[in-house]
């Protein structure tokens, strides 16, 4: 029996082999089916292995490979946390591969995607498995570059090159932050192994600096506001199954990095770390979903909604940190489990929704919701699973999104006992932000589904749409089934997560499997409990009862007629509500502050024949206030430093000399 970690490494090797295969067979017509078939099979094997070691609690297994730095080697380790994230990664990978079997056949340039797809999967697996700082950073960069290549797959489309450029800059920045963080963690002695870092002592100022750097490094990959700007550009630019992986899975790998360092390597947290993470998480959740609401491009809307969900996860992690710092083990375990549960849920429904958006894109060639509509008649199966995804992500019972939100709210309700005043005031405020984000998410997905799938077709392309292939449908239906199952049987998921919480927090949530009727009870029964299965059974029973009685004893007649619309027949589909008009009330309420939205109405005087015009001005304040000044500063400096290129050799020598003297002086004063 080879150890679990070796199995995973073999899977990674197989994925890298698939990359080689993709390059070798790039001329073949069957390479698409070959590559996605191979990644599907490998991901399933890796998923089974990870799931087994998570549920069977096999304990941590380690492996050292003699590659990498000569005196260090490459360390890999599979513990409960890594196993959980491997489940997330490989489940998403399996679904994306299955989807790719169908979706990839529409690809015009498959050789730009096929080699990088398995490499990207391998990179994500390796990041989670890495057990020393050098391997971690190397794999992290590998993952970033592979995903960058996938973003640039359609590089001739407008905006994609810019998306790739912004992504590259932000990814390098993030890795720089991670590099510094691991440098600080390893200390002057250079103990790069995670085991050495874990056992080392870290001063409070060091820990604070590492936390800040991790928030910059992992946060920029995950999409924390204001480091999120690349995400809504890059995620939609990639092919849809890669978008699903980037949004549903790669952001989770970033969260894994954050958890690994902050909860595992850094030692006991301070409560102020919790405050910072809470504020960032709450702000990210609300701002992310507001951006999503204003968006009319379906895939960009989904990308912005990812930012919201990342905010929710970070909020929950912040709660866990605050509880952990004050020694409230059970509450910390609750918040931490809720965060992991949401990680899992988000990987399910966000992949599902991106697959749905990809199906719409294949079928109509459109991402712009204002040109879609009425697809529920022409793509009934896709619209059904997309609806499931929308309900799940809107945190509505009995689906899975509600369970994790509910657990987070239960964790919020544990916090009046916290001793620090800042936390006492912060936590209810963040709870309010979460509630607001959840309500806005529901509004956002009413819009996403309503404008895309309901109403009348807004363009000939939407009129002529058809259902997608069976592979894509299979991938979407299996994810929808997972959303449903995790929603009605949350106790099983919570129990499966307990070893992770035990390892990171030192406590776990109570065992759920023994609760009657498969309820979940976070603390004790008199405080709160929820039973998704029963709620689902009740709703089904009540609805069936109503249907039965009405169809049996009252009328069942149906007549089709033209829409009533208060007698105002709308002649064209353009007269329907559009995405922009749907969010107009919300834009008025929140947008004036967050986007400085201004509406300009140009109404011609009576008798004037020119058309009336309506214009909305919106500003992306993060770009305008933060990134534009930053780029301008960089340009300015670059312009000034440009002169350094044209000096004489004497000046260069004197510059080198001056630098040397300054450095020596600094060193002398320092020591």
């Amino acid at each position, binding site marked *: 029996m080879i150890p679990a970690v070796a199995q995973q490494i073999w899977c990674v090797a197989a994925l890298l082999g698939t990359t080689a295969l993709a390059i070798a067979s790039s001329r073949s017509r069957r390479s698409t089916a070959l590559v996605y078939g191979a990644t599907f099979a490998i991901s399933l094997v890796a998923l089974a292995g990870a799931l087994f070691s998570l549920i069977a609690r096999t304990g941590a297994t380690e492996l050292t490979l003699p590659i990498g730095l000569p005196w260090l080697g490459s360390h890999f380790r599979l513990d409960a946390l890594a196993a959980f994230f491997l489940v997330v990664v490989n489940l998403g990978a399996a679904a994306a591969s299955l989807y790719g079997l169908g979706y990839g056949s529409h690809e015009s340039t498959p050789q730009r995607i096929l080699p990088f797809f398995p490499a990207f999967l391998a990179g994500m697996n390796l990041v989670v498995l890495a057990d020393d700082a050098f391997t971690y950073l190397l794999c992290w960069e590998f993952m970033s570059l592979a995903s960058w290549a996938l973003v640039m797959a359609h590089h001739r489309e407008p905006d994609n090159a810019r998306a790739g450029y912004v992504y590259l800059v932000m990814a390098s920045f993030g890795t720089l932050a991670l590099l510094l963080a691991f440098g600080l963690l390893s200390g002057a002695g250079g103990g790069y192994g995670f085991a050495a870092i874990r056992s080392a002592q870290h001063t409070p100022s060091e820990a604070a600096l590492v936390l800040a750097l991790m928030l910059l490094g992992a946060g920029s990959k995950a999409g924390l506001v204001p480091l999120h700007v690349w995400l809504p550009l890059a995620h939609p630019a990639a092919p849809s199954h890669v978008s699903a992986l980037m949004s549903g899975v790669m952001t989770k790998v970033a969260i894994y990095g954050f958890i690994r360092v902050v909860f595992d390597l850094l030692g006991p947290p301070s409560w102020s770390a919790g405050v910072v993470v809470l504020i960032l998480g709450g702000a990210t959740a609300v701002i992310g979903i507001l951006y999503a609401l204003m968006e009319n491009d379906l895939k960009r809307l989904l990308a912005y909604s990812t930012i919201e969900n990342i905010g929710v996860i970070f909020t929950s992690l912040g709660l866990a940190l605050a509880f952990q710092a004050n020694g409230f083990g059970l509450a910390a375990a609750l918040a931490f489990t809720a965060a992991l549960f949401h990680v899992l849920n988000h990987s399910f429904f966000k992949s599902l929704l991106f697959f749905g958006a990809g199906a719409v894109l294949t079928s109509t060639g459109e991402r712009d919701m204002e040109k879609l509509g009425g697809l529920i008649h022409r793509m009934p199966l896709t619209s059904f699973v997309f609806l499931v995804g929308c309900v799940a992500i809107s*945190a509505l019972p009995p689906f899975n999104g509600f369970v994790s939100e509910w657990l987070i709210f239960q964790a919020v309700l544990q916090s009046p006992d916290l001793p620090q005043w800042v936390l006492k005031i912060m936590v209810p405020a963040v*709870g*309010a932000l979460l*509630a607001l984000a959840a*309500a806005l998410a529901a509004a956002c997905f009413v819009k996403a589904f309503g404008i895309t799938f309901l109403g009348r077709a807004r363009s000939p392309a939407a009129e002529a749409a058809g259902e997608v292939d069976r592979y894509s449908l299979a991938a979407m239906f299996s994810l929808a089934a997972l959303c449903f199952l995790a929603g009605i049987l949350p106790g099983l998921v919570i129990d499966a997560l307990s070893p992770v919480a035990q390892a990171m927090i030192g406590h776990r949530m109570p065992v759920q499997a023994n609760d009657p009727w498969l*309820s979940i009870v976070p603390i004790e029964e008199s405080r709160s409990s929820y039973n998704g299965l029963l709620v689902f059974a009740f709703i089904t029973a009540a609805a069936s009862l109503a249907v039965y009685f009405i169809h049996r004893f009252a*009328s069942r007649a149906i007549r089709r007629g033209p*829409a*009533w619309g208060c007698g105002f027949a709308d002649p064209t589909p353009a007269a329907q509500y559009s995405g922009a008009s749907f969010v107009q009330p919300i834009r008025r309420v929140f947008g004036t502050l967050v986007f400085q939205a201004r509406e300009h109405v140009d109404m011609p005087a009576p008798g004037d024949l020119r058309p009336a015009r309506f214009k909305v001005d919106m500003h992306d304040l993060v770009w305008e206030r933060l990134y534009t000044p930053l780029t301008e500063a960089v340009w300015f400096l670059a312009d000034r430093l440009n002169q350094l290129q044209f000096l004489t050799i004497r000046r260069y020598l004197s510059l080198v000399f001056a630098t040397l003297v300054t450095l020596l002086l600094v060193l002398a004063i320092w020591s």
Partner: protein
Amino acid sequence: MVVISDIFVQLGQMALVLLLAPLLTGVVRKIKARLLRRRGPSIFQPYRDLLRLLRKEVVLAENASWLFRVTPYVTFAAIWVAAALVPTFASGLEFSWSADLIAIVALLGSARFFLALAGMDVGTSFGGIGSSREVMIAALAEPAMLLMVFCVALIAGSTQLSTVATFMASSEVGLRVSLGMAMIALIMVALAENARIPVDNPATHLELTMVHEAMILEYSGRHLAMIEFGAFLKLLLYISLIICVFFPWQITTEGAGPLSYLVSVAAYIFKLAVASLLLAVFETATAKMRVFRVPEFLGAALMLGLLGTLLRFVSRGF
């Protein structure tokens, strides 16, 4: 034995809310009519309306999808399940542990989600305007409601409604500032969620100000009956919620004799009557506000909920 009696209480409650809901709306309408010196229809008129609608055929728009036909039943079922979980006359409901107050709020959210989608299904501008405004109102009302839930849950130490009602019925609660704030917040949210004046006008038709009615404009026959019934149930649910959290006097707690059930049912009906009188008087005395004043109204509810919760967080005394 206890389990069986509990199940009977649960089933009795489910039947009771179903029977009482149209009557409550009828009573409110009657009182409003009397306050306006009109005679008004009989208090049983909502039952007749429902029966009439149920017997009629459904006229579906040509491009209505399956979602449009499923939504009335889904919303009705979600609201009914939620209403069945709010203690009315007895706190020991058999299935109250299956969903707590947060889940009840989310169940109502599910109902609204589907109704808003159905409003967009046919693709008329009226449906769109209704859905768009409904989600705007919900985007503020739902957080306000959740904050009210937080506040109450912190005082009672539970989000379980049966536990909350039992705790509130005990004498140890007393008057609290935060409870008062939560109550005002809940009443404001209830007005908005039930499309009452000053947020929306339930009696309006063909006005650009309507919200709820615009959303369900395309519905007819039994579908409309289900949606109307759902709306009646929702009004009853919110009033029961206010009663059970803030005025749970005479509610039967576990282990009481059969006589106490009679008393508590009578007390519950009396409280409903008082609530409908207050609602009618309030609705007659105020004017409907412009749609874009609604966010300010609900923002106030949100702030009250937050303030109440904050007070609980900073001190046990409030």
